[in-house]
């Protein structure tokens, strides 16, 4: 029998048992539905992560640290040896950890590495307060603005380059600082207070520790930042200013401490960094001089690792549904073989080969798989596409991001896999059909 004849005959015998075929296919459809949505959701998550990366990191830059715990490496269970270079940082739980920092000397060394174009310290200055005349004081953090970042603005514009005491203010501060509107805030000044560290060596009283000297500076608002949707967690309320202004603030607040002119991380721009080989080369050379360098790709891999785990769990559930449907197919196919004993006997009597009869039933199973896969994936696609805008708005992913992203090729491969699984499920029943004794099958009395 020609292949096309077999495929048609298989389809025809399914049509003659519509209800049975459809019910069996529905079991696969459930699996296909779950898997299609999972794949779409993980595509969405992947692209969300990529968006975060693209908005926050320059792919031609490396993050360089002196202490690999900063990048989530190292062994936190072992005591760390003390060094004078250590600055202290306070973890979320309040514990003081010490992190080896990069000094100006270290930065010089990094700058000297061949292939390094420029180095930019990552400065995060802890402010004492932010305020305006006749307004309340608010705590805040000021960060050096990465030149490649393109945050969404609601008012004003980011000067290129951003220099001096200009600030990018998050939307949330507008009302808090008593501005009538976002537009009114642009060009106005805010007052920033920075605390000097306690003088070392001198005995300290409790009140001295509280009331320390503050330095007050004025900053001009250049632009208002829209509430970011793709920022790193915890940085939503960061104020941004120029590199040199951030530097100055940081110097004031750390003067005389171990953190003075010492940075947990620096950004190293690689010459011709779009070439992955250059990135890797510089990364290795920095490792050779005793520091740790992470590329954007590494960061991405770290973030997507979590997504992959979640994805794996949902896929496992989908596969369980598919597994359950396999038994449905096996059962249905056995019934089909039983019901069509006569037909199989006749086909054998007319000279149809064992192999062809087996194949006829495997095609039947394949049709069920195709039908189920198409129904499931189709429903998932339809439902997902219809509800996507609503869901995306609900989880507040922001413009340009979708929770679900459907990829036709992916869905095609999924359906193909389901068809193959169905064929495997139809293997035993099809063997039974192929092995059927035509004389027994054709016995009438």
């Amino acid at each position, binding site marked *: *029998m*020609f292949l096309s*004849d077999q495929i048609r*005959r298989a389809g*025809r015998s399914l049509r*003659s048992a519509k209800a049975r075929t459809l019910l069996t296919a529905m079991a696969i459809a459930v699996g296909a539905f779950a898997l299609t949505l999972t794949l779409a959701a993980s595509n969405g998550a992947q692209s969300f992560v990529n968006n975060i990366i693209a908005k926050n990191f320059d792919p031609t830059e490396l993050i360089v640290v002196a202490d690999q715990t900063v990048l989530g490496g190292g062994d936190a269970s072992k005591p760390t040896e003390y060094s004078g270079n250590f600055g202290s940082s306070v973890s979320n739980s309040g514990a003081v950890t010490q992190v080896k920092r990069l000094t100006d000397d270290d930065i010089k060394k990094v700058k000297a590495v061949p292939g390094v174009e420029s180095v930019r310290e990552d400065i995060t200055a802890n402010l004492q307060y932010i305020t305006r005349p006749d307004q309340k004081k608010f705590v805040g953090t000021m960060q050096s603005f990465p030149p490649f970042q393109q945050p969404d603005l609601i008012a004003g514009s980011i000067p290129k380059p951003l220099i001096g005491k200009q600030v990018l203010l998050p939307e949330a501060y507008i009302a808090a600082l008593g501005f009538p509107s976002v537009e009114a805030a642009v060009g106005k000044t805010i007052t920033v207070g920075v605390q000097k560290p306690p003088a070392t060596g001198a005995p300290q009283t409790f009140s001295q520790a509280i009331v320390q000297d503050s330095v007050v500076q004025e900053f001009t608002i250049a632009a208002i930042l829209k509430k970011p949707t793709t920022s790193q967690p915890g940085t939503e309320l960061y104020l941004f200013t120029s590199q040199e202004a951030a530097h100055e603030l940081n110097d004031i607040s750390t003067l005389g401490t171990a953190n003075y002119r010492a940075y947990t991380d620096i950004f190293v721009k690689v010459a011709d960094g779009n070439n992955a080989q250059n990135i890797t080369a510089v990364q290795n050379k920095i490792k050779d001089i005793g520091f740790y360098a992470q590329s954007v790709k590494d960061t991405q891999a770290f973030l997507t690792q979590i997504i992959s785990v979640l994805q794996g769990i949902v896929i496992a559930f989908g596969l369980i549904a598919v597994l359950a449907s396999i038994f449905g197919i096996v059962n249905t196919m056995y019934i089909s073989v039983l019901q069509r004993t*006569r*037909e199989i*006997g*006749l*086909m*054998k*009597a*007319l*000279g*149809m*080969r*064992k192999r*062809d009869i087996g194949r006829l039933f495997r095609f039947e199973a394949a049709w069920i798989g195709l039908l189920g896969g198409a129904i499931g994936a189709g429903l998932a696609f339809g439902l997902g596409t219809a509800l996507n805008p609503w869901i995306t708005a609900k989880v507040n992913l922001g413009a340009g991001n979708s929770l679900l992203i459907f990829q036709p090729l992916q869905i095609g491969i999924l359906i193909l896999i389901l068809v193959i699984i169905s064929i495997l499920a139809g293997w035993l029943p099809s063997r039974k059909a192929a092995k059927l004794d*035509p*004389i027994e099958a*054709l016995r*009438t*009395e």
Partner: protein
Amino acid sequence: MIELKDITKTYGKGDSLFTALYKIDVAIPTTTTAAIIGKSGSGKSTMMHIMSGLDRPSEGDVIINDKALSELKPRQIDKFRSTEMSFIFQAFFVEANQTCYQNVMLPLEIAKVGRRNRRKRVLEALSAVDLEEKIDAQASKLSGGQKQRLAIARAIVNKPKIIFADEPTGNLDSTTGELIIKLLFNLHKSIGATLVIVTHDEELAARCSMRIYMKDGEITRIEGKSKQPTATSKKTRRV
């Protein structure tokens, strides 16, 4: 020529050994109409199965047109059956939920006949049994006699050299049965095939040019123009 040489067929082993056929020796010349007559359990169906290669004998050999079936591989026998033989059954075995066209096409599909010739040949076969108007009708809508005519169309569509008919009128009333028999004999004549009818109906058997009577797995008598005198002589020797 279909020759059965010393065919014995047994089932089971030891005490439960059952001999379905015992030393069958017969030759059916080409284009003959031959009837195999016997009560149920006489071994007539088993003999037809062995003749058509559906079943293998325990001993002996079937030789069809100088080809020994025992020397053929299963797939060669399948090919042989798909191109040179066909079957008509008591219970018709037409697929009720398929159209007449699809039913008649089955042997063409099995024999890998090219797509172009199919419809023409199906039409020819259907008009030979006077069913060409029903070509796209569901087989379930046909009467018993029409179903058997459809089965005959299916049996002749491949232009076989041998047609096996197993009690072809067994499920039909006598008038319809009569029509089917007439049709069968006319077609046999026009396509020049060998027709082997398994039956217990003496009247039907009487129309055949050769009659093989069977009882308890043995041939008791052969009537008609058998060109093989050995068959008779062996029979007498055994009796």
